[in-house]
């Protein structure tokens, strides 16, 4: 079993993105966000992603609807489609006699604000340990975190959702992404009604979606003005390697 075999399988299971981060890349990360706090034998963190259809964001862009985005860009993608992909990857890993630990992609910032429990023993971090999934994706070479705090990938810009698999298999890591997506661009700040002051995201009416308690009431922003501005800027600056026949906004 090697990285390329898992990558090919993950694609056949519906993953649009698959990257590998050797555990050494997580050195220095706080134990309350460290993969080895969940699975101490972790040698590799596999980051899986599925795209958010650009069409799912179209309805938000046109202000004609929200529910297609909530369904296909958020709820079903995150709660149904992506877990199935991660589950299938773990089945493959287990069939090769290694351990695979599937991890749901919670918003770590929102999760950190919720008290869950005290540590069960001295030296252990308090449950639940949540891994910063966008940062893990950076370490797995999938893309870079933009000024808005969301992951940007060369394939889909801000339009993807992520899940993790921790494994004790030692797999070759992917090279880190070196693209400077932001490079002086301030489109996300310019289009945000609050100039990207994150504490005001809950007030945003441009396509932000407040999630429920089960998702730590995180504010989803992939369809919001900041994300759509970013997508438009990335297309205009030709920084995406996937091209549509028409740009997301072809009138500006």
């Amino acid at each position: 079993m090697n990285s390329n075999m898992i990558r090919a399988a993950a694609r056949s299971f519906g993953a649009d993105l698959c990257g590998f981060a050797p555990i050494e890349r997580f050195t220095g990360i706080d134990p309350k966000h460290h993969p080895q706090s969940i699975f101490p034998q972790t040698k590799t963190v596999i980051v899986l992603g599925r795209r958010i259809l650009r069409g799912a964001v179209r309805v938000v862009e046109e202000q004609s609807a929200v529910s297609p985005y909530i369904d296909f860009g958020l709820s079903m993608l995150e709660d149904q489609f992506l877990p199935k992909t991660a589950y299938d990857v773990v089945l493959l890993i287990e069939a090769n006699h290694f351990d695979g630990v599937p991890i749901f992609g919670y918003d770590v910032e929102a999760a950190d604000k919720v008290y869950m429990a005290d540590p069960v023993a001295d030296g252990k971090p308090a449950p639940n340990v949540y891994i910063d999934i966008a940062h893990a994706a950076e370490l797995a070479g999938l893309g870079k975190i933009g000024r808005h705090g969301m992951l940007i990938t060369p394939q889909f810009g801000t339009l993807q959702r992520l899940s993790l698999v921790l494994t004790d298999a030692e797999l070759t890591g992917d090279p880190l992404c070196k693209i400077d997506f932001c490079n002086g661009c301030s489109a996300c700040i310019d289009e945000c009604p609050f100039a990207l002051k994150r504490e005001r995201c809950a007030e945003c009416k441009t396509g932000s979606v407040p999630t429920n308690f089960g998702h730590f009431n995180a504010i989803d922003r992939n369809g919001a003005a900041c994300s759509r501005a970013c997508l438009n800027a990335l297309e205009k600056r030709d920084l995406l390697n996937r091209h549509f026949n028409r740009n997301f906004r072809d009138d500006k």
Partner: protein
Amino acid sequence: MNSNDVKAAAKGLGADLCGIMSYDRFASLPPDRNPLTIAARTRSVIVIGHRILRGALRGVEEATNFVSVYDHFGIAAPGWKFLTKNLAELGAFVEDAGFEAVPLRAGHREADKNWVDYMEMAHLAGLGSVGKGGFFLTPEFGHRQRLAMLLTDAELEGDPIIDLNFCQNCDACIRACPNGAISANGKVNFEICRNCQNGVYPSRGALAEIAGLQGSDEVPDDPIDRYAAVCGRACMVALEKHIDNTFGTSFRKRKVWRLDRDGKYISEEK
């Protein structure tokens, strides 16, 4: 990417039905039911469908299981899980070809928003037509399918529109309903249906919670789920010799159970 490519991809993903509505048919639709109102770039509508297994209606027919058979395999699995996953993956296929794909569930309308009528889209995509009982009927499965749509800016060739005559001289659904909810001209009084005790299920808006989806300002396109109800099953039995999806034996094995609005048992001859 042409219509045949889309259909092959849809079938490959597991869709039982795939029809295409071309741009020339948009003109006949008013703005409040026009795909252009949702996405102005739309040039075609792709409608896909998953069959509802005949076996998924068995528990209701026998009145012995209303949850682990139809609820899971008639509603959640074909409607919320397989169909939506296939729709998303077909959307990815369309977007990989450089076109945009806006995914829409059928029972999926937002309050105070214009929307598309999924049965109208399916009809204009050549999949079938609406019958007297208010069900969308196809030559393949009769009333047994769930549908979803992609709006795309790809210009695709449309399928021929078909007008089925399944309901000609047939009043099976009307006769089956003990509450008189379906009139002779095929108008359904859903207020009566809401109180029906013969196998109706909550609307899909309510089912969002069951499926674990978060609440939204949604109103259902189908006011009530009647596929497994006494009217839906009557339609299925009436059509079983006329559709493509045939079986070795008839669905109906015994007298039909029916309850009136007060829950009192009324029998009907087989």
